[in-house]
């Protein structure tokens, strides 16, 4: 009887110990309603394209540093930058550069924003291995995806209807390709995906269809390009040399369908923010970039 009671007490004590060790330090006081909860909390807000990447960084960073806390929010690059100016976030994630006005506003408020490229977004245009087309210009690509060009022979290929493959609207790639190629970087352009575009539910499915269909064209993140398909070199404009998509050409900025992904901080990063940024740029952090089909900086 006494034996059992002692055992029960011991079990209870161990449980209490484990519980207090397990949850006490990782749960900061909450209820202030602001994103900066404790000094060790890093708040990231901004680009929806980057939100999964930011989340993945946050998770692996918190997994390695038990007392660190990273809060990720989306909303768009502009939202993130506005929040940074108002001091509501530590890091603004942005898939575009800050505008001159935004930088001026920040400098006026007393903290010149510091930009850090944390990864790159590059999209490869893929065709079947048997397709004779060697390269396309961005304008040709836009004409193909808006339905103005419908036959491969119009761009130097074998006669045959072009089968357009795209990602579903919930994909960041869909949005990036639309803004960057179809609208030609002009966000007010009324250009749209051709109605005949087949919206496919995954990048893997695009690769698989292009691999089997000689008339298909599709676009996927660089990480998805395999030997089964051919990634077309793309020329930024007629007369300019076409550049093959590769991590190097994306990093060099010569490949036209790519963009750097930024982290903006208020002035030089320090403390917890700096520690997190160091992690993001470390080999581990850049491995996360590759995992999520973006292009690492280094």
């Amino acid at each position, binding site marked *: 009887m006494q034996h059992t009671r002692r055992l029960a007490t011991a079990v209870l004590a161990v449980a209490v110990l484990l519980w207090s060790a397990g949850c006490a330090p990782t749960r900061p006081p909450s209820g202030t309603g602001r994103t900066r909860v404790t000094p060790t909390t890093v708040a990231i807000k901004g680009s929806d394209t980057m939100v999964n990447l930011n989340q993945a960084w946050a998770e692996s960073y918190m997994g390695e540093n038990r007392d660190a806390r990273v809060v990720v929010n989306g909303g768009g690059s502009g939202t993130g930058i506005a929040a940074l100016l108002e001091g509501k976030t530590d890091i603004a994630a942005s898939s575009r550069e800050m505008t001159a006005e935004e930088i001026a506003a920040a400098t006026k408020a007393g903290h010149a924003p510091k930009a850090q490229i944390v990864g790159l977004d590059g999209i490869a245009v893929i065709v079947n291995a048997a397709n004779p087309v060697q390269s396309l210009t961005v304008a040709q690509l836009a004409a193909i995806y808006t339905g103005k060009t419908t036959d491969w022979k119009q761009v130097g290929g074998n006669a045959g209807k072009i089968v357009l493959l795209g990602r*579903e609207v919930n994909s960041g790639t869909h949005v990036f390709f639309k803004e960057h190629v179809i609208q030609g970087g002009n966000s007010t352009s009324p250009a749209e995906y051709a109605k005949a575009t087949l919206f496919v539910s995954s990048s893997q499915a695009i690769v698989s*269809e292009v691999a089997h*269909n000689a008339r298909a064209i599709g676009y996927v993140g660089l990480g998805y390009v395999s030997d089964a398909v051919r990634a077309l070199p793309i020329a930024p404009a007629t007369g300019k040399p076409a550049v093959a998509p590769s991590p190097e050409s994306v990093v060099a900025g010569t490949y036209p369908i790519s963009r750097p992904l930024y982290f903006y901080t208020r002035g030089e990063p320090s403390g917890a923010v700096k520690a997190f940024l160091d992690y993001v740029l470390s080999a581990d952090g850049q491995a996360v970039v590759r995992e999520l089909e973006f292009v690492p900086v280094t």
Partner: protein
Amino acid sequence: MSSDPVSHEPTTARIPCAATSTASRFAARRSCAERQARRRRFWEWIIEHALLLIGLVAVAAVVLVLLFMLRDALPLFFADHLSPLGFIFGTEWRPISFPAQYGIWALIMGTTIVTAGASLIAIPLGFACAVYLAELAPRAVREVMKPTVELLAAIPSVVIGFIGYALLNNWVRDAFRLPTGLCALTAVLLLALMMLPTIISIAEDAITAVPRSYREGSLALGASLLSTIRHAILPAAGSGLVAAAMLGIGRALGETMVVLMVAGNSIEVPLGFLGNPDLTLWHKLATLVQSGFGLFGPARTMTATVASEMGEVAVGSVHYHALFAVGALLVLMSLTITLVSDVALRRVKRS
């Protein structure tokens, strides 16, 4: 508790249904039987009402699902001020453009074409198979075939979709010389395959349920077996066959994964050229045949649209409400089909 008048012995007082004298034993047995009957009635009441409650939960679930869908669908017309006609008959589905456009005619036509195509294949095939299994097949064949057909229903739809994506897609493209195999026809073939077990199983039951006397009477009058099946058995099983077809159609209408994977999902309206006033009738007919009645082109169904876009949509946005409206319309279409099949089932029961 004991009402036994002579149960003064402590032992019998404890056991209510045991008495010593003949008279009291008789009285006790009667009161005991009465008590047992009362207890049984009580339990029957409990069970009956518990079952009623379970039935009501199912009814409530249907009503609540519809209310839940409508709660998030109706703001599309009242708060976001889209016209219901423009929503249903609009031919542009551009949910993330500026300005966004929400017209689901392409989705309605996609769902209609895919469901109709699959039904046209699966219903005749299913009925033929059911007749064979119920009337013609040797016992050994039937005993192997029927469970096998029913096993077909157990294959997860994503597996069927995967087979369609990796194999059928390429076969359809090469066989019909199409630009791509990601089209309505591939989806139709796979959906037909998925409808078959439902149709065969229910149709076979309906045919087996036809009284033996019909069959024997017809054969005794000198009718051949095929004539008996056609003129005596099938008409008698008619309502059951309708129910089988309806449940099969419901299966095709609600299927999501397969169409999402193989139907192409473009926002082009299938058979949209039929509404073009510039085309002559002959040109329309020629295009109709050329397009394989719309089956050779891509189709985007209502289910696939909701499934692929719901994940990332901002809660409470116009797009969100539009997807709920698509869902609500789908529930209404599905309910209509179920009600029709229910009426048919009731008719078969009456006959």
